[in-house]
């Protein structure tokens, strides 16, 4: 009897020990909510149509998004670190046509937009305390701004010079208050109707682009040149140096990331066909055609949607990452080993709900913040952010 009692007690003790062991196992690292999220920013107004353009981190570890709505009107949206909306602001109607990208200077965020009547350029400063944006500078000679790129020691703005049918490139001081230099290239034809369609969101959106080589010896821009949509190299003095001409207005480059030493990660398009080359060699002094650049066809990519290429680091390895939109309206991250054409991994985002790529950045915790447009209920275009956690990126390149 004593033995029987002992064995039962032993069995129950064993079970309680198992319980404590399981409790111990379940006490693992706490997940931080800012590591991963999907947020769609609600607007009950069914007539609103958003087109997100750019996202930047703010001082409080939240994010600020710059978007267009109902055509060329401008919308700002501030979120906290977990992507929840804190405030939003519609700019007065005189300010229109915000261009990518948001620019960070001394802890403040700025963006470039246009006067609705005078067509000239404003630099606007975001006031996070006032929950709005205020005029910081205006450049009355710089009409039809199309793109703004931050090179650290300067900001480059691409524009269309309607009086002489030229594409202009302006070097703005790092303090964003004066024009330091400018250059231009001839288009030889009036493209104002295309420009207006682009900036009012009523027609084709062209992938205007400006970038600076790491050596700071060339400024690369994708824009109108010589009857085509071309990629033009301007030297450090903003004089014409070389060009890869597009196929009229239906082909050219839609994203380019200078890697240094004449190496580039690029995406080019020809009508509806899309091609990637993450390690192309381009000559900044040549005159060539864009379609001659070797590249791999990407049949599933929608060539009319924005494509972004950026450098990110995963586990101390560098990657050229392409964010694109598939023809089935998913987002596709393609991760190439930097400086090679080796595809190390890819990741699809979204399923059965239309998404369109807008912008992305690597975050301080090693993840990615992606700005996208989502079409809710098949009807309403809204701004959305997707935070991909570091572990998901690591799993993508395993």
């Amino acid at each position, binding site marked *: 009897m004593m033995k029987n009692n002992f064995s039962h007690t032993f069995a129950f003790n064993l079970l309680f020990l198992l319980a404590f062991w399981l409790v111990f196992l379940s006490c693992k690292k706490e997940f931080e909510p800012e590591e991963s999220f*999907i947020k769609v920013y609600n607007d009950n*107004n069914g007539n609103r149509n958003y087109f997100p353009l750019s996202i930047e981190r703010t001082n409080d570890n939240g994010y600020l998004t710059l978007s267009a709505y109902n055509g060329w009107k401008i919308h700002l949206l501030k979120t906290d670190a977990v992507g929840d909306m*804190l405030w939003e602001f519609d700019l007065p109607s005189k300010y229109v046509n915000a261009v990518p990208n948001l620019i960070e200077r001394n802890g403040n965020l700025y963006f470039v937009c246009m006067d609705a009547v005078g067509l000239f350029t404003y630099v606007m400063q975001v006031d996070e305390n006032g929950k709005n944006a205020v005029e910081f500078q205006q450049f009355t000679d710089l009409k039809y701004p199309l793109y703004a790129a931050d090179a650290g020691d300067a900001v480059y703005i691409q524009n269309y010079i309607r009086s002489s049918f030229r594409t202009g490139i302006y070097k703005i001081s790092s303090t964003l208050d004066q024009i330091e230099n400018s250059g231009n290239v001839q288009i030889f034809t009036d493209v104002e109707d295309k420009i207006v369609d682009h900036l009012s969101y009523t027609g084709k959106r062209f992938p205007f682009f400006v970038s600076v080589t790491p050596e700071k010896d060339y400024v690369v821009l994708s824009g109108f040149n010589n009857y085509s949509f071309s990629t033009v190299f301007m030297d450090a003095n903003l004089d014409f140096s070389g060009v890869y001409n597009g196929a009229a207005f239906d082909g050219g480059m839609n994203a380019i990331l200078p890697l240094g030493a004449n190496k580039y990660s690029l995406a080019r398009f020809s009508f509806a066909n899309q091609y990637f080359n993450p390690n192309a060699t381009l000559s900044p002094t040549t005159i060539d055609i864009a379609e001659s650049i070797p590249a791999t066809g990407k049949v599933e990519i929608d060539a009319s949607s924005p494509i972004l290429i950026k450098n990110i680091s995963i586990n101390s390895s560098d990657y050229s990452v392409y964010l694109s939109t598939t023809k089935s309206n998913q987002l596709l991250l393609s991760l190439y080993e930097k400086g090679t054409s080796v595809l190390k991994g890819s990741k699809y985002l979204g399923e059965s709900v239309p998404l369109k790529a807008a912008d992305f950045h690597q975050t301080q915790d090693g993840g990615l913040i992606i700005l996208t447009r989502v079409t809710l*209920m098949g009807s309403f275009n809204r701004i959305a952010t997707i935070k991909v956690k570091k572990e998901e990126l690591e799993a993508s390149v395993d």
Partner: protein
Amino acid sequence: MILSTKLSVVLLLSALSQFTYGQNYSVHNKNKSYLSLIGGVNFSLPKITDRYSVLTSNSARLEKDYDNIIENPGAQFGIRYSFNLTNSISLVGDVAYQSVGFKYFTNYSWTDTVNKQEFNREMHHVQKISYFTVPLQARWEITNGQLKPYIQGGVSLDFRHQAKKIIHYDNTIDGEETDNELASSAEVSIKENTRKFNLGLTGGVGLNYYTKYVTFGLEGNVKYGLFKVISDENRYSDLNGFALKYLDVFDQFKMVVLNVQLSVSVPLNNSISTNILRRKKYYKRR
């Protein structure tokens, strides 16, 4: 028909007389062990600790509305082993399979004042999670008669087996499923959205009726899950495609489960030779 009615009445009276007569017996089951079959229904209530949503706004309230406990039924069945340390104190261990459910409701509306259009979407979210549960409890039988009320308490180890979800939706916001508009998503697994293990505190009251061969029991228990049910890591991984399509991610919560179940137990030792039931006038309780 009349015969069967009479037979039923006779059987009922017989059972009642046995019950009344049974109070003349005391139960002596120290060092005895029992094996039981258990089964019953349950009702669950998620206790929300953190709210999450895909759609975010700085004005509108976008929280989920949870159904009350009575609208979240489930079931459980299993086997039970108990060992009596004394005539009134026993240790009870179950191995059971328990299915719990919870439901919530969301709705969204968009109005186009320019083109005079409106779009409404109402969604009814139905979740079922099944666990292998191992409650380990101590039980105190309060009296020594043949009908013994008891209270019990302990812990429950819950190992998730399956988790599924389906959404029913329509375009009329009225809190009800509108039959002529109703559509449903596919039923998808939410296993990766839920945590594999939970530990609960459990306790309840019950009643055992002892016979020489079989013991019948009825009990009710409350279990409070100490750990969160939803996996925070996978909340936004959109493993089932519901996050953007149905604007759905889970809130975080702990689960309270109320169950009512019946048991049928047999002594593992031979009940007659071990003489569990003894007339009260001959034996004092030890």
